[in-house]
């Protein structure tokens, strides 16, 4: 593998795509309305798909194109549409959405990104610049996804946090050159995400809870048991 440093087109483009996914993760953190959250997630999925195809081209690994296509098809198109339809049908409103104020969420996000960079870069000192960069960005997207799940009250937005975390995973898997089974893994991850969305649908339809606030659910199982 020839040395890919600054200035090589393949590194620059991957770096840009990774950066956009990170930015979109930050955007997700700061969204107030559910529909805009879904759109941001879709854009992040598109960025992921492009990054996967780009990695496919760089590592001339045909299976990565397939991963990119799946990512685009399912995560950028199908899932956002299903989410939008259910939002319209159940006229979800955005009351009391944020558990933490936007500012503290962003501050925590920055801290997490700093942590992941501080952790990944020294540990991957021998690996190539591309993989180091890619891993750091992927770890940041994963941690931001986790942060999103923690800072949101409603189950719906937690699911979106979970899905952005999955995007970070696929980004990491794609970034590593020559990793086998990437396609199978991305399919499995897709199944996992699908079940999450399906789970959210199922629960709301059957059990008609008034609000999606998971705190309401938790009172059901509190200390007296």
């Amino acid at each position, binding site marked *: 593998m020839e040395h890919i440093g600054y200035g090589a087109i393949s590194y620059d483009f991957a770096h840009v795509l990774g950066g956009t996914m990170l930015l979109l993760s930050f955007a997700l953190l700061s969204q107030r309305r559910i529909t805009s959250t879904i759109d941001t997630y879709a854009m992040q999925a598109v960025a992921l798909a492009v990054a996967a195809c780009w990695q496919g081209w760089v590592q001339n690994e045909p299976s990565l194109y397939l991963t990119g296509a799946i990512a685009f098809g399912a995560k950028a198109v199908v899932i956002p549409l299903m989410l939008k339809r259910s939002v319209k049908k159940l006229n979800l409103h955005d009351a009391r959405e944020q558990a933490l104020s936007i500012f503290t969420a962003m501050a925590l996000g920055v801290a997490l990104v700093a942590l992941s960079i501080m*952790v990944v870069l020294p540990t991957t000192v021998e690996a190539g610049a591309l993989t180091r960069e890619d891993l750091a960005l992927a770890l940041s997207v994963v941690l931001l996804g*986790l942060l999103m*799940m*923690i800072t949101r009250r409603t189950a719906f937005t937690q699911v979106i946090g979970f899905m952005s975390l999955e995007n970070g995973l696929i980004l990491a898997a794609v970034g590593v050159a020559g990793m086998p089974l990437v396609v199978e893994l991305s399919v499995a991850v897709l199944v996992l995400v699908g079940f999450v969305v399906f789970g959210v649908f199922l629960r709301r339809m059957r059990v008609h809870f008034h609000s999606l606030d*998971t705190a309401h659910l938790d009172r059901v199982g509190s200390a007296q048991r």
Partner: protein
Amino acid sequence: MSATLLQGLVLVMAIQLFAAPLLAARAPRLGFMASFLCCATGAIIQLIYLFSGAPTAELVVPFGLAGQGTVLSIDGLSGLFLLLVMLAGSAASLALLDDHGHPIPTAPAVPVFIGSMMLCLLAADAFALVVGFEAMSVASFILVITQHRDVQVQAAGRLYIGMAVWSGLCLIAAVALLAPHGASFAAMRASPPSAVVGWVVLGLALLGPGSKAGLVPLHIWLPPAHAAAPAPVSALMSGAMTKVALYVLIRLVFDLAGPAQALWWGLPLIALGIASALLGALRANMEGDIKTVLACSTIENVGLVAIGLGIALAARGADLAALSSLAAGAALLHTMAHGGFKTLLFLASGAIQYGAGSRSFNALGGLIKRMPITAGVMLLAGASLAGLPPTPGFASEWMLFQSVLGAVRLGGLALQVISVVLAATLALATALAAAAAVRLIGVALLGRPRSQGAAEAHEAGPPLRWAMLLSALGVVLVGLFPGVMLWFAGPAMAVIVHGNMQDRIGYLGFATAADGPGYAPIFVLVLMALAVVAIWMVLQARAVPGHRAGPLWDCGFGAPPSWQPYGDPLAQYSATSFAQPLRRVLGTTLLGAREVVDMPRPGEIRPASISVRMADPADSWLLAPLARTREFFSRLTDRLHFITVRQALTLMVLVLVGLLLFIAAVEQL
């Protein structure tokens, strides 16, 4: 020869552990008969073994931890304790045959209980010792909760099994500390522990097996457990189980924790012994039912044995061979004596519980007229409990006091002051025991019956009678020939303190040293007999024979009410009133005894009442605070479990971030 004896014992144990329980599950009486025969043969084998000078023998058994075999062995020390367990086991099994038609549902646990005690004594490697100890706890737990419908029995069961788990864990830790290079006792003896490890092992031995024996501060489980269990089982627990726990304590501290211990090792044992003797004897005077009184007196007697062991250990540390063997002899003689008369007392309490229908003092009285054999046997055992001269209790207490006298020679003013305090405590404990014995016999057996059941009490069935008479014979023999029992304990003393008293023992009695004071029970008995004969002759010559019956001087009490034809119990001293002076003198400080008088206001027709509240100091100062702290931590941990999904994920992130920081820190270095 000893190898064949050991194989015989292992066979007896195997039958007790596996065959007898199945038989007892089918037909309880057959099971108890089998257990009795096993114990009897075991006792005979033991006597032959001790007569032949108790040479050590070893045997490897295929079962064990992770595929390796376990080593079983017998030496002087385990031989002596096995003799006691076998005798107590045969008495209890015989007594259990007297089940009046409906045997106890947990019958199979009795042979398992005796078998596991044998395993504990025969064990020669860490795993067998620990398994025997824990199996003994489980089997006795099953027996304690025989009448599990009664809420008090359930509470006693919970406390009992909790403390049993604690003492088991302590024993596992102590034995693990001693066995870094090999689990068998031989390997442990080969590599004695360092000083610090030694002290930790001593601490664990006192808190684990020590609590199982009934030493303060972890003795609280003993009275409720003995009161809950059926009487023959309480006899086994008090007579044999506490002694097996003492055996484990002795084996750990004297034998396995290395030969040369410092003089100071004996002090914790002496301190706990003093506390147990005082607390046990005082509580024995305050409790309201027979079996709890006997259980508290077990705590006292275990305390006396601990004092003897403590002095022996200190003397061994200071190389005073004569004193250490005297003190060890006192401890072993008292263990055997107590094993004998306490078993007898519990069997008698079982007879009373069935014969008179209750074991609470407020419902007994005047049983000596209706149950002559039980009363006679109880008089003999009560005398021994009180430590009156011709009985075994007196012989061991005499030896114990002589070793306390000898303890002055351990040197150092502090030690001498301790030995004076020890002397005072010993005397106080013996006097309290005497008061408890008089109270037990006086209230339960003598005076007028306090309930219909006591008025129509009937004697125990033949098997229980035979069990009591055989045990009584044992107690009398040990009382009259303590020298012979000390001779049996010779090999055990050799194991413990590397010296024995064989040169200072005669058949009639024994002495503390070649020219020291001696005690010969036979001589005392002869003196008493001569005096009785002399008085009898004078009475025959001068006095008018026979006597006339007449009403007792009741100082103006009215006739008893119609529903109490046997006489108004209130016109007679009850157990609480007998203990009232002692409660006021010693009880208020030690047991926090408070008397609450409830006087009705003028015009009210309800009777005035006096109620007494007492709490065992170990309960109020140790168990209650521990329960509160555990409750605090439980509520604390509950807050960590019932959290929302969001908080759970926050925890996960915190762990992840923490570990990442840890990695980052490692990277910088």
